[in-house]
Structures are given as C-alpha cells and as structure tokens.
C-alpha cells in the first residue's frame, strides 16, 4: 500500500522541524493525504507553500544532461567535465544544510570557485555591518521571556516569517509591546494606505513613521537615543526614543532581505542605537534572515576556512571580497565560466538562465528550468523532508536538527558533492 492509499495521518516522528524559513519552528506536525503534505498546528503560509512541493512517494526524478534523462554516473561525469574545463567557476544558490556545506568546501577549494548564496546581498548587509562595528544580538527565547518592547524596523516580520509573533510570545501572555518603525517615504511610494499597513502589521502593533527614507529614520533614531536632537526635529521618533529608554529589555528586529541597497548602513545605525541604550539599560538586535541555507553555508565555510562566503581559494591564496564576489554581478559581466547552483529546498529562486554551462543540484521541480545544451541537472533530497540534516536558526546560536518525513530515494547534496569531488580528483590524477 503506498502512502497515497493509506489513510491520512501524521507522518512525522514528532517533532518535525520546518526547514522552509529560518525560524525553524518545531512545534507543528505534518499529515500525509491524497493532496500531499499538510501542516498541522499552524497556518504558516511559508511552511504550507514549502510543503506543497512534496508528496510521500519516492521521487521519480532522474538526472538530466541537456534536458535528457540519464543515470547519475553520466550526470556526474558530465558535471566533472564542466568543472575541470572551467577557469573560474561560480557556486551559487547554496540551498543546502550543514552536511552539504561541509561537502561543498573541498570542491570549492579544489576548483577555486567563488561562492555566493542566493540572496547574497542580504547576507552581506549583516556581515559587512558586523565586520565594521560588531553587533549586540539576542535570540528567540530571550525575546520571548524578557522583551518588553519590540521595534520592527522597516517591515513587519510576520509577512515573511508568519510565526514570528508567536515565536516572540506575542499574544501568548508575553507583555511586549510591538512597534513597526517605517520611513514615511516607503509608505508613500507603495500603494498601501496607512490603514492597510496597520492591518498588515496586525492588531496591537503601533506604527511609527518618520519623513525620509529608512537611512534617515535610523540615523535620526540613533541621534535621538544619544540625546543629540533638539526641539521637535525627531517627530514621532522622539516619543519612540523615550519608550526605548524606559524599556527594560528592548529588541530591534530587522529583516536583512527587506533592506535597500547599502543596507549595512541601516544595520550599523541600529547597532549604534542598541549600543547607546546598553550604556544604561538593556537592548539587543534580532536579525531575521539567512533563509534556504544561506546562513548555514556561511557559518560552515567560516569555521572551516576562517573566512565567510564571497571568498575563493585563488592561486594567490584565500581571498575574501564582499563586494567583488557578488554572484549576480559576476554572471551579468560574464566573469565566470561555469555555474554550479544548489537549491535542495525547492523554495529558492530558480537557477539563473545564463549562457554558460550550468550544473544544478536541486529539488526535482527545478528540472524544467535546466534544459538545453550545456546543462546538467541532478535531483537531490530535501533536508527535513526526504533526509535528515541541520540548519542554523535566524539568531545564529541554535543549530536545529531536521528530520526526514520519509525516504525520498534521492541522494543528498552532500552525497552528490562528494562524488563530484572524488571524480574530479580522479580526472586530474
């Protein structure tokens, strides 16, 4: 009897860790039914969308070369030929877990590849701010038990992180007040009216606006907190600064992916605000981001090599170039000659359509985006669905275990990468 014929029921050995957003919630379960996998215990849009890409049957997906089905050995051999012929590979997407990242690093060293995740710009906002001034951060359990004021900067996290409020204990007896801090120009530029922004923010969320862009807002807030603003120049920010000063434990939350270009400057101003507050009271940042393996691969590469992503093992040595090694730009400028794209969760952006050879290790649904000559597609298992694994939670301190809902019969990213590295080694010998 196949899973589809069996009556619906919970399939996850409790607990199940949802791999589809960096909150990595583990208090919900999954039921398998005729319609596929269904989330139980939450209405989370992101988890539901992620789960909709899977059934309980072993995947029938096959590797492809140039859009034509082949066996895995042939796909590996074709991929190795591409990598061996490359003078400068780019490893992008990077939608994988710790095991995948551990297996990717030796291949990156061997090929001199530049590594940059999908959403690399957002990851780099936080990283560059950190490299410049550092940070003072907090974690979900601290926020839940300690925060009395949460200021969400720029956007409402529950749009992209639907369980955010629940994870912060809002509405579950926690006493934290929630404020959405926005640039007035942002709401003017969008079609959203004040009322609909407040709706999106949710009941009980105060919306505080300040004229200008987000850079102006956070600069003025930092100045207010430091007592460097006189008169009414700060507008509504003056009152917010007072609330922050009066708070026992204030949290400033931001979603790096929602920040504009040069977002590191915004994070730096938030760091300064927290730093000033911490001279007399307590405050901390809560960064949101690092979805689809980006933060995890960054952590693993950092511990193995000593340097974060946007690094390559170049002939001259290990080069970290936060600006130059931007995958989007390198592809646009034809500065790389082969692309290895990893997207094992199915929720990543599709592999870029570029006119250089592409090797894609991805969720079976990405096969359609990897057609035509000069392409190799190898379907891989999804951590947390078809195989076990580990991902870092958004706050960076907790490495969550992921459990398989079933065996999807596909190789893991790590399996494929190890075979590639081994075969490449053989090809060079």
């Amino acid at each position: 009897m196949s899973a589809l014929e069996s009556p619906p029921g919970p399939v996850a050995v409790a607990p199940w860790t949802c791999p589809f957003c960096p909150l990595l919630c583990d208090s919900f379960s999954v039921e398998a039914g005729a319609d596929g996998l269904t989330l139980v215990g939450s209405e989370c849009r992101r988890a539901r969308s992620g789960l909709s890409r899977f059934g309980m049957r072993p995947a029938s997906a096959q590797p492809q070369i140039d859009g034509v089905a082949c066996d895995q050995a042939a796909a590996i051999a074709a991929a190795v030929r591409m990598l061996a012929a490359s003078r400068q590979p780019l490893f992008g997407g990077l939608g994988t877990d710790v095991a995948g990242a551990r297996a990717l690093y030796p291949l990156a060293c061997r090929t001199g590849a530049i590594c940059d995740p999908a959403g690399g710009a957002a990851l780099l906002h936080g990283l560059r701010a950190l490299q410049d001034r550092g940070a003072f951060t907090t974690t979900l359990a601290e926020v839940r038990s300690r925060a009395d004021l949460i200021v969400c900067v720029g956007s409402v996290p529950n749009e992209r992180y639907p369980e955010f409020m629940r994870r912060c204990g809002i509405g579950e007896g926690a006493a934290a007040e929630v404020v959405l801090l926005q640039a007035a120009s942002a709401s003017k530029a969008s079609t959203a009216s004040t009322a609909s922004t407040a709706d999106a923010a949710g009941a009980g969320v105060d919306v505080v606006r300040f004229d200008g862009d987000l850079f102006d807002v956070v600069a003025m807030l930092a100045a207010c907190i430091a007592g460097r603003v006189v008169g009414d120049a700060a507008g509504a920010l003056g009152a917010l600064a007072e609330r922050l000063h009066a708070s026992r434990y204030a949290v400033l939350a931001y979603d790096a992916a929602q920040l504009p270009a040069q977002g590191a400057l915004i994070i730096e101003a938030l760091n300064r605000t927290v730093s000033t507050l911490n001279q007399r009271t307590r405050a901390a940042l809560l960064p949101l981001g690092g979805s689809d393996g980006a933060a995890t691969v960054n952590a693993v590469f950092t511990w193995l090599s000593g340097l974060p992503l946007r690094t390559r093992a170049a002939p001259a040595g290990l080069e970290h170039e936060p600006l130059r090694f931007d995958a989007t730009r390198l592809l646009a400028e034809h500065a790389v000659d082969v692309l290895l794209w990893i997207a094992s969760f199915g929720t990543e952006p599709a592999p870029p359509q570029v006119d250089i050879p592409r090797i894609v290790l991805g969720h079976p649904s990405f096969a359609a985006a990897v057609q035509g000559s000069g392409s190799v597609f190898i379907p891989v298992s999804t951590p947390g669905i078809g195989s076990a694994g580990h991902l870092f939670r958004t706050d960076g301190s907790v490495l969550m275990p992921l459990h398989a809902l079933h065996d999807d019969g596909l190789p893991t990213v790590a399996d494929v990468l190890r075979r590639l590295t081994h075969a490449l080694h053989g090809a060079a010998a």
Partner: protein
Amino acid sequence: MTSLTTLRLRGGRVIDPANGVDGEQRDLFVRDGRIVTLAPGEAATEEIDIGGCVVMAGGIDMHTHIGGGKVNLARLLMPELQRAGPNPIALPGNPLELASCGGCTPGTLATGYRYVEMGYTAAFEPAMMACNARHTHMEMGDTPILDHGAYVMLGNDELFLEMLSRGEDFQCIRDYVGWTINAAKAMGVKVVNPGGISAFKFNQRKLDVDENHVHWQVTPRQVVHTLAKALRELGVPHPLHIHGSNLGVAGNIQSTLETIAALEGLPAHLTHVQFHAYGTEGPKKFSSAALQLAEAVNANPNVSIDVGQIMFGQTVTASGDTMRQHAQSGLASPRKWIGADIECEAGCGVVPFRYRDQNFVNALQWAIGLEIFLLVNDPWRVVLTTDHPNGGPFTSYPHLIRLLMDRSFRAEQLAKLHPDVAANAALNSIARELSLYEIAIMTRAAPARLLGLKDRGHLGAGAAADIAVYREDADREAMFTTPAYVFKDGALVARAGCITAVPVGGTHFVAPDYDRGIETMLRKRHAVQGGVNFDQLAIGHDELCSCCNGGRLLPAACFETTS
C-alpha cells in the same frame, strides 16, 4: 582486528611523568594504535630511530576556544586578520591540507593542522552552550586529527538560578546538571562569571561573590558551591571548571580567594587565573596578586588551575562573560565588538584586543601569568594555557615554554617591557626554571589526569599511542615548535612540521547517571518558555557521530560516588 605491524621507536629519551619516567633512554612499541610491551621473542616490524630525541605523550590542551558560536563570531568579526600582510593567506602546499586561515581566529582545519604540527593530539573547548552544542560538536568534528571534547556552561541559565532561588531540592538540581551533560554530550561543566551573565540581562553591571543577583537573589558563592557539589555527586571526573567573578578587574584576587573558599574543599578547576589575580596596590592601583593566588592554590589541594598567559600582539577575546566583555568593550582594538544574550541560558562577548608590551597593565598581566606558573609548587595542578585566543593564540605555546624553562631568556624579555614592570615585577626575583619533566606534566600528564582520561597523557602499556617526538634543542622554543614526529593513535600524522595524515579525531564525553524523573519538569518548562521542542534538545549517539564527522566516540568513565 589485530594489526600485523609493530612499530618500534628506538632510542628516545622518554619523559612520562604519569609513570614516573624522567628522561630514561628506552624503546617504545606501538601496535593497533596503542603502546604495547613486547612478549619475549616478539619483534617489531618497523622501526624509527629517534636517538637524540625527547619523547612525550601527545599534548593535551584542556582550555582552548576552538569551536562553537563565539569562536565563529570572532572569525566573522575579524576578516582583516586573515591576511598575510598585504596578501591573502597562501594556499597550503601540502595536498593533504585544505585552505584554512591561521592567526588568532583560525579556521577549524588550520586549528587541527597547527596543533598537531606542534605535538598536540587533543584539545577541549571550554565554553559550550547547551543550545549551541550541536554547532560546537560540528566545529570540533571539522578540526582534523585532534581528539576533542567540551564543557557545557551552567550557572547562568535561568532554570538553574530559579531552582536555586526557590530552594529546590539539591537532588533535583543535580539531576538537571546530569541531564544537561548527557544532552549536550559534554566532558564537564563550566561556570562563567557565576550568575553574572544572567544578571547582566537584568541590567546588573557587577556581581561580587557574595552579592545577590538582582532578580534571582542568589549569590555566585551559592552557584559555585552547588555546581561543584553536583558534579562531585554525579561522579564527573573533571570537577567544576570555573571562570570566576570580576574577570580583569583590579582587586579581583579577593573574588578569586572567595570563590576558592566557596568550594569548602570540593574539587574544582579555576581557569585562566591570570585574569583573576590582580591587586590594587601601587600608583596605578593595579598590581600582581600572583603570590596570594599561588599561596591559596598551594594550600588548597582540591583546586587546580590553568593560567591563561597573555602574549603580546593582536588577538581577539571570545568569552561567555557578557557582563565583563561589555565593560571592557571600550578597550577593543580595533574598535568593534560582538555581544549576545542567548536563549535564557548564556551569553557571549567577542572583543578584539592588542596586548602591548609598553602598556603597564598588559606588561604586568604577562608577568603575573609567569609568576603563577613559577610560584605554584605542584605542577600536577597547573596546566599550560593562553586561554586561546583570549591571552594569545595557541601557536605561542613553544615561546611560553621557553619563557618558563629559560631564566635568562625570560629576563631578556622582561627587560623590554614597560619600565615600571621591568624594574619592579616580582618575576625578576624568581629563579625557578621548569624542567622538561614539569613541562610534560603541565602540557599532557596533568590535563589527562584532571579530565579523567586514563589512557591519554602517558606512555605506559595500554595507553593510546598519541606520541610527540622532539629533537633535543637548547632553544626550547624551536624544540617545541616542530617535533620530528607526531603520532595519533599510532598513525604518523606529522613529520618535521608537515602533516602526513588527516584522520578524524574522536569525541570525549561523560555520561553520568541521574534520575530521569527530572525530564518531566524540564519538558513542562520548555513547553512554556523554551525556544526549542524538548525532544530536540538532547543529542543522541548517532547524531553526535554525524556532528563529529564520523570520529570515534570516547566516553570517559565516571567515578563511583558514595552518596
């Protein structure tokens, strides 16, 4: 499976303090990864002539920040240190190595390579957060060759403080400690600024040993005593590992002595004591209290220490002590730092620091560390550390060994420091030079004994064949920088400073017995206050294997308790 090969290391001078051997010329035999004695008529199948060499067990670093959250944050914070002057750090010439930066925040790969090249075969991460245990084990698993283990942090978690505060049954607290060690797969328990990390979250900026935590109304004295007693009752071989109150504060010797008193004779290990041995004498109100500390250690046989020697130059301090790191963050060089409040159980602070030889305080810190090494009588209770990277990188150990073994070299270095320190330090009048035997105690035999590792840190029959062979050299720094041969579990892993094999190291941990009834309470509490499902907290053996990259699991036995 029994190996057919038996290796003979012929003609070395063996220094093996655990077995009372001091420089005797004798052969060592290695088979199946162990030191063996040959039966009459048996012969070795391979032989290496190590005449003129000194042989010791592989070095064991029992306090070195090699992996986990704050170490990785230090790497993220300081990419500018991962350069060789204007150039990127060159790729390794050795095909067995993968690219990895060194310096004071090395990648895990470089950490393994550099330790092993120096003759070390095991290293212990002293500050693992339970919530970060998987990450810590992952990093240690990616530290090649070295065996490893970690101490889990307790004493700032809100649950422990709450239990203490409401006068919970001691048995309950003990079982919670036992559960935590098992869940995190730890080798011991460390307490950092007892109660102080939590207190900082409640906006308390200072916490003396008999001062109340502003919220929980418990004192560091109670925290230290309770944890030390719990470990004693659980039979955990490594006693409570204590990073005391008021780190870095002038006059903190008082806190350190009070912490020793709080133990009331229970065994404990005071870590990086150099940072806790400051007086307030002299015009700058900052003085050495090394003598007072050494007298206390000499008088309290229940106490062991490691020093946390500082070395001049750039480093980064990575600590769980958010309260003190926040207080010191104004001294950051370069001026940036990271702090974090973490999961209602811990915190971290990462502050870059440059120790300057012309700075009075730094110069005196250097002298205090050396004074402690030389004033404590019993080398079995002193472990050689720099608290890597906090006092300086572990790669400076050979230099430190020379300072301890060579009085004239020490005097030359002291003379170059800030003139007030050069002229007035008590170190000037200390003539003691440590012997190779004492160095072997402080770098392998003592740490093995303090950790309860019965088959490590010595060269007797049955011991793991972790062996370092040093070419005799009057310049001890040169001698200890590049051993001629290093063996790990009998395999040659480094030869003359070059890695020759990269096996995966094993994981040391303890599994004390405790009453599992405690899980009912923990489950309830986590359902309400936790950030992670209770069933996900404990790391099982299979998962530990995958975290540790398939390295061997090395459970250490607990001792029998009489309670």
